[in-house]
């Protein structure tokens, strides 16, 4: 998010997913949407049928890569070099959009100087991708009448995730691929309503509507709406920082809703110690998760079909979700639980239903002002910014200006960096992590479905046949995977879809995140889930 705010002025997807059908070239980097956002595949496949060329960059040959016309199998963590190389080819061959660069961006000279260093031969050595393919991809992207970039956690979950995102934006900006149908930069969000949570200020630095907590004017404006004079001006902590603070005894109590950090956070052993150290832990969830088992109090919440309200999709589209079934047993809608707790704490949370919450959002968040309960239920989906009740919504951002202070797209040079941890003699393999189609996030829900478990029952590790031969391991063999932080066991899947020297594990099961590094990106504060050095040994 921080990367797109710095370059385009807004951290959200610039174009909706279904606008991909209008694209003539779709460049997918660090996203395996065929497994993780299968619905996105529909529009990419439609675009392909309409003649679009598809470029996929990924260390693994995923089902998403099956769709590709050009597949760039880069080494994990070398995205910036690859993207800079595309800039290099595009600038050198004069394929960039000069009018757009001149009128709508600033910083081109620095980008030109940066790109000069990343010729295809140099970058082939860094990324492992043949120089010819790198150039071909660059030409395809730059020459297409409209081209879109799709990325996901393969770009963001690095210690230089911010830089990776900036590099994606640089590429879109110099080619003028912003603000038109079929163009844009499309970060696919990891979960439903993450976009909504961010919009509502579910981040440590902002209040609802991305009003900065350090900006007194907007802080006081929102405080006034809540009947207060002012609100705390200090930014809070991010997820991993909270866990660290808990471990240091600085955070005494935690209230965790719908999240299972014992599986989803990096360095599980550290998370356990941190949560153990808390004086008081409340977990609100629909199941007794690994995290809920550690709680002093567990509050049974509601699943999506048991509550009502809006959700904001990855493409900024706000939709109403009606309640379909009653909550079982003692479970309650989350809004109900939050209101009751707030009242006990002495706050006036007098919301009768989700309609009333949305009405408050209409008042507090300017880009949601026109998304009233009446409208959103009637039209089925409205895309913010939607400032008035007669506004149709804004599916495509940055059409005339950018949301940056200067109103220009900011080209920011970013140099290639090596990941936090690299292989050595003791840990000779690169571990990358991700998701599989059968499971969702920490698996709190999907590991309870017999249909899904039957198809993906337990933790596995993907190994290239060459590495398997070297290690003397065979298919479905139980092996021990270790990193500097811990070890776990998993069954092997031997496959050519992963290159030699790299192994892959899904994070839906306990074990994987005991291995990954908890080093953070200094700006985005996201952990480097995508690269760690590991070793594999035969299990005794």
């Amino acid at each position, binding site marked *: 998010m921080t990367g797109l705010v710095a370059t385009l002025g807004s951290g959200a997807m610039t174009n909706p997913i279904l606008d991909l059908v209008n694209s003539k070239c779709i460049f997918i980097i660090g996203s395996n949407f*065929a497994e993780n956002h299968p619905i996105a*595949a529909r529009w990419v496949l439609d675009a392909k049928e309409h003649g679009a060329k598809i470029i996929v960059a990924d260390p693994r040959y995923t089902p998403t890569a099956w769709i590709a016309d050009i597949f760039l199998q880069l080494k994990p963590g070398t995205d910036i070099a690859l993207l800079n190389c595309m800039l290099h080819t595009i600038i050198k061959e004069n394929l960039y959009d000069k009018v757009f660069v001149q009128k709508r961006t600033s910083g081109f000279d620095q980008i030109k100087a940066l790109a000069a260093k990343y010729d295809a031969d140099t970058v082939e050595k860094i990324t492992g991708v043949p120089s010819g393919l790198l150039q071909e991809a660059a030409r395809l992207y730059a020459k297409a009448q409209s081209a879109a970039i799709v990325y996901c956690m393969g770009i963001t979950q690095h210690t230089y995730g911010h830089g990776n995102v900036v590099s994606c934006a640089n590429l879109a900006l110099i080619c003028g691929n912003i603000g038109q149908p079929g163009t844009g930069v499309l970060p696919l969000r990891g979960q439903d309503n993450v976009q909504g949570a961010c919009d509502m200020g579910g981040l440590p630095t902002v209040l609802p509507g991305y009003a900065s907590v350090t900006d007194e004017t907007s802080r006081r404006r929102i405080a006034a709406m809540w009947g207060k004079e002012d609100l705390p001006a200090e930014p809070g902590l991010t997820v991993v920082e909270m866990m660290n603070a808990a471990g240091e005894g600085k955070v005494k109590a935690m209230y965790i809703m719908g999240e299972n950090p014992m599986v989803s956070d990096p360095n599980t052993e550290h998370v356990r110690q941190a949560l153990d150290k808390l004086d008081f832990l409340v977990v609100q969830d629909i199941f007794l998760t690994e995290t809920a088992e550690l709680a002093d109090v567990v509050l049974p919440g509601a699943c999506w079909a048991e509550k009502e309200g809006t959700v904001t999709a990855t493409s900024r589209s706000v939709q109403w979700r009606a309640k379909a079934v009653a909550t079982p047993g003692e479970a309650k809608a989350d809004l109900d639980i939050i209101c009751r707790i707030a009242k006990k704490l002495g706050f006036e949370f007098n919301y009768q239903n989700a309609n009333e919450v949305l009405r408050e959002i209409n008042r507090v968040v300017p880009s949601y002002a026109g998304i009233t309960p009446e409208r959103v239920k009637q039209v089925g989906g409205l895309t913010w910014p939607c400032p008035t009740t007669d506004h149709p919504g804004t599916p495509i951002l940055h059409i005339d200006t950018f949301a940056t202070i200067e109103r220009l797209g900011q080209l920011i040079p970013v140099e290639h960096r090596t990941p936090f941890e690299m292989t050595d003699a003791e840990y000779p393999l690169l571990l990358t992590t991700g998701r599989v189609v059968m499971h969702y996030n920490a698996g709190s829900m999907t590991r309870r479905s*017999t249909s899904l478990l039957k198809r993906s029952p337990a933790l596995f590790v993907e190994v290239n046949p060459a590495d398997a031969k070297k290690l003397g391991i065979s298919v479905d063999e139980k092996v021990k995977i270790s990193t500097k932080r811990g070890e776990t066991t998993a069954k092997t899947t031997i496959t050519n879809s992963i290159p030699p020297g790299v192994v892959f594990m899904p994070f839906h099961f306990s074990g994987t995140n005991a291995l990954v590094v908890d080093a953070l990106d200094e700006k985005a504060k996201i952990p480097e889930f995508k690269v760690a050095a590991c070793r594999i040994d035969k299990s005794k």
Partner: protein
Amino acid sequence: MSKVIFMDLNRCIYCRSCEIACEREHNGHSFMSVLILDERHSVPMNCRHCKNSPCIAVCPSGALTKLENGPVIIETMKCIGCSLCAMVCPFGVLELDNLSKVMRKCDLCIHRLNENKLPACVSSCPARALAYDEFDVIMQKVKNRAAKAVISGAGLEPGIVVSPPQS
């Protein structure tokens, strides 16, 4: 009038939503299985509900019939579990139920068809790799698509692309 399930193999992304949907409709058992080939193609396999069904032709007890609206169904009370139908099926999609000792197969979600709903596998396919329609309607769509591809210079892809696994 009978419709067919059309598989667009260029669109299948191996998400297996069809299997899960089938399982939900049929008491936890899926008659759809998506096979993966060469680590780069996936093929959803279920009963093709053939117009000239070899399974019906060989069934000695008359347990198999083709209904007017398309589905080839099995009357389990008539089935003697001889497996001849499975032996002649070119797709290997008939199953012997070990418990009841009779054959079982995809019923094209006849209960859903009767409610004017799509077969579960088709309605759950996020990539629209599966379609359920009149044969001619589907072929017309394929023709339209091919014509557009010719004009746009996108080139044509054969329905099944079996290329060697990548090195």
